[in-house]
């Protein structure tokens, strides 16, 4: 069992200024997940009649992308390739001080304590993260030929759970790893290729309009991504964007690529 000192960001609502509040987490088992540790702290707060620490979580098995805490300055904490819910207390030592903060970005306003509004990512998806036509049900195997490498790349990109840790980790609060995973996922597949130019333009515009920063190749995003999505997808997105140069100066609605 260990005792920890928590420094948690508390903020009543989107308008509140917010501040760091100290808590003691006592009798923490190394087998607990980070969220279970917070559950214990919250139960104690509720018993004392205080407002519990509010945080996002859902599946608690590392696949939903809801949990979103910056732990000691690192989104999802010190373990690579894990979400907060899959981070276990055995990675901390008795007596440690742990800072717990929400994602920080202009595009992700804090709603309460550790919860931020990530609908900016939804807007980017709405701008182009889909295929416009019905591609039908699951096709027979190999009826639509896709090169093995392309299928693997598309799958790697599709692993993105949209948690926003890439934005939170980026010193520029850039969403380019997220957007590049979506752009890359579609660009590698025949169903997505048809709209690839329009897609990258629309998604990059939505990303810029939401107030995210610009990538300067720090690669902090890749380091914290719970799905370990590679920054090479950002290079791929840059290539996709460059492709659109073929269409410079074409009139609106001129049609045909």
């Amino acid at each position, binding site marked *: 069992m260990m005792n920890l000192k928590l420094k948690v960001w508390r903020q009543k609502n989107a308008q509140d200024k917010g501040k760091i509040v100290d808590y003691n987490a006592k009798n923490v088992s190394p087998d607990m997940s980070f969220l279970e540790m917070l559950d214990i702290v919250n139960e104690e707060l509720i018993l004392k009649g205080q407002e519990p620490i509010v945080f996002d979580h859902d599946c608690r098995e590392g696949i939903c992308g809801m949990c979103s805490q910056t732990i000691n300055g690192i989104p999802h904490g010190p373990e690579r390739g894990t979400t907060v819910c899959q981070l276990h207390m055995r990675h901390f030592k008795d007596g440690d001080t742990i*800072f717990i903060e929400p994602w920080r970005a202009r595009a992700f306003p804090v709603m309460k304590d550790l919860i931020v509004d990530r609908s900016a990512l939804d807007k980017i998806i*709405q701008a182009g993260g889909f295929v*416009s036509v019905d591609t039908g049900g699951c096709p027979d195997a190999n009826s639509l030929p896709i090169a093995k490498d392309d299928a693997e790349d598309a799958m790697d990109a599709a692993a993105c759970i949209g948690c926003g840790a890439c934005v939170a980790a980026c010193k520029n609060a850039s969403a380019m790893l997220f957007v590049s995973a979506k752009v890359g996922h579609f660009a590698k597949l025949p169903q997505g290729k048809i709209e690839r130019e329009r897609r990258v333009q629309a998604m990059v515009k939505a990303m810029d309009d939401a107030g995210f920063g610009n990538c300067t190749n720090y690669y902090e995003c890749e380091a914290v991504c719970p799905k370990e999505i590679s920054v090479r997808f950002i290079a791929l997105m840059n290539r996709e964007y460059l492709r659109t140069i073929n269409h410079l100066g074409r009139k609106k609605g001129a049609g045909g690529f």
Partner: protein
Amino acid sequence: MESVGIAKKTWAFLPVGFFSRSIGKKLVVAVTGVVLLGFVTGHMVGNLQVFIGQEAINRYAAFLQGLGELLWLIRAFMAATLILHVWFAIQLKLENWAARPKRYEHNATVQATLSSRTMIWTGLLIGAFAAYHLLHFTFMSLHPEYKTLEDHLGQHDVYSMVILGFKNPAISIFYIIMMFTLAYHLSHSVQSMFQTLGLNNDQYDGGLRRLALAVAGILFVGYTAIPAAALLDILKLPAGVK
């Protein structure tokens, strides 16, 4: 519904639109960076002729001066490239600062290199140095006496000017520090420009990082060889020049 917009939304645009987006602006910085890298490489190779001898470097300088209007065209092109590079880089940086108005109470860095995090500052330092360097050796406003140096062929004696300039340890050390700054800037930017231009994948990545270090190292050694050689008396002033 608005979200069906991918098919309806404007996708045709003018180049202005292309370069107003985040990736478009990054492309401008990368492409101008390639041109500037080409310049610093060529400039270094040209300058290294000082080791061949007084005649070689003076003839090279006279050749450049002899380009006349063409020289000014090249200078205008380089100035425009530099202005675009700095302008877009500053614009991106300001947007990046604005994108995180509230910083973390506890900051951490996992793998971003110090060179990547100091690009704006190393860049601005190099810009300021370039201005000083032009006044020092190109326009000689800081040392009008350099203008009267001539070799036995009646050409401007760049050889003696460079050695005279670098005999001053303060100036030499300053130049060496600034060349380190340039190399430091390039150690991030060479691999970064490949990434931004989309020329990176899992196979290339490690090689590009090594290439960046190699380019930075070669430029640092090549450039600092000249002030170092002047300080250490390896490059000697010709007889009669003081």
